[in-house]
């Protein structure tokens, strides 16, 4: 994927990304929200149209992903994959989408009822689906 700003990404991939995010949330009751943003903190696609909240979330995800990657480098743990946050009322996964050189990040929020393993698999599957469709579009 070549350099593109968030507006271009929204125009070119927004509907495809929204489709994948909607599929993820529609098929799984425990998933509360999902978003794709750029690694420098711009929202590209999201479920639940609360624009202000998604703008803030995109910036936070960007920072946390970068800090996670810095920690992975510091502790020599190989390549950064994802970041997981667990809270009393739910959990959140932030994943780098393969094939975008880490430039696009998937964030998914789930309630506490959704089993963690299931949550992880669902998110990975969505990442793979997005990655596959992006490579088709860019080919």
């Amino acid at each position, binding site marked *: 994927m070549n*350099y*593109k*700003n*968030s507006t271009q*990404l929204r125009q070119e991939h927004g509907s495809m990304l929204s489709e994948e995010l909607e599929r993820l949330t529609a098929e799984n009751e425990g998933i509360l929200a999902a978003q794709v943003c*750029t*690694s*420098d*903190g*711009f929202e590209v696609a999201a479920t639940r149209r609360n624009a202000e909240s998604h*703008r*803030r979330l*995109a*910036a*936070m995800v*960007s*920072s*946390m*992903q*970068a*800090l996670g*990657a*810095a920690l992975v480098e*510091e502790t020599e743990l190989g390549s950064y994959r994802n970041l997981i946050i667990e809270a009393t009322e739910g959990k959140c996964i932030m994943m780098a989408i393969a094939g975008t*050189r*880490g*430039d696009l990040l998937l964030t998914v929020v789930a309630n506490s009822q959704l089993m963690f393993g299931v949550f992880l698999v669902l998110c990975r599957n969505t990442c793979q689906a997005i990655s596959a469709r992006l490579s088709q579009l860019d080919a």
Partner: protein
Amino acid sequence: MTPEGPQEHKILFTGTMGAGKTTAIAAVSGIKMVKTEAANTDRGAFNKATTTVGFDYGEVGLAGGHVLRLYGTPGQERFSFLWKIVARGAIGVIILVDNSRPDPVADLGLYLDNFKKFAEIGGVVIAVGRTESHPKPSIEDYYQFLAGRDLMLPVFAVDVRKSENVLMVLDVLFNMLEISDAESA
């Protein structure tokens, strides 16, 4: 500042995207810097390949075993949630202003608002960059702006690529804080 034993002090570098925060810390850090950069997709704001989205970290060793821990914030306002987090425990702030931007004085105002508590205790030094290519606004213009806000803070024209410039700004900030401490003691 406690005079006994080696001390560690946390100092923040903040300012707009592309003002030179990462460069300034890299110019003086005695350790390998921690950088949290991402590909910059907002080339309209500043045309550079990467931008800090977490924080930069470096250290400067001082005589007597004292250490300055330097933190650089992301510049964009959408990261202001992180400014507050990174500022916890800091003793002072260096605001880098890019004089080539459309309204650098307004930029300064934004950072003074966000780091108000430091400005009010004299814990802020303002370092203005790219003044050779963009001489306006002048340093005097900045002083007038600060006077309008009842603030007496030092303003310097600097080249953050030069370690002596960055060390000078750190030295001024450190001395201001010591004076402030002595006056309040």
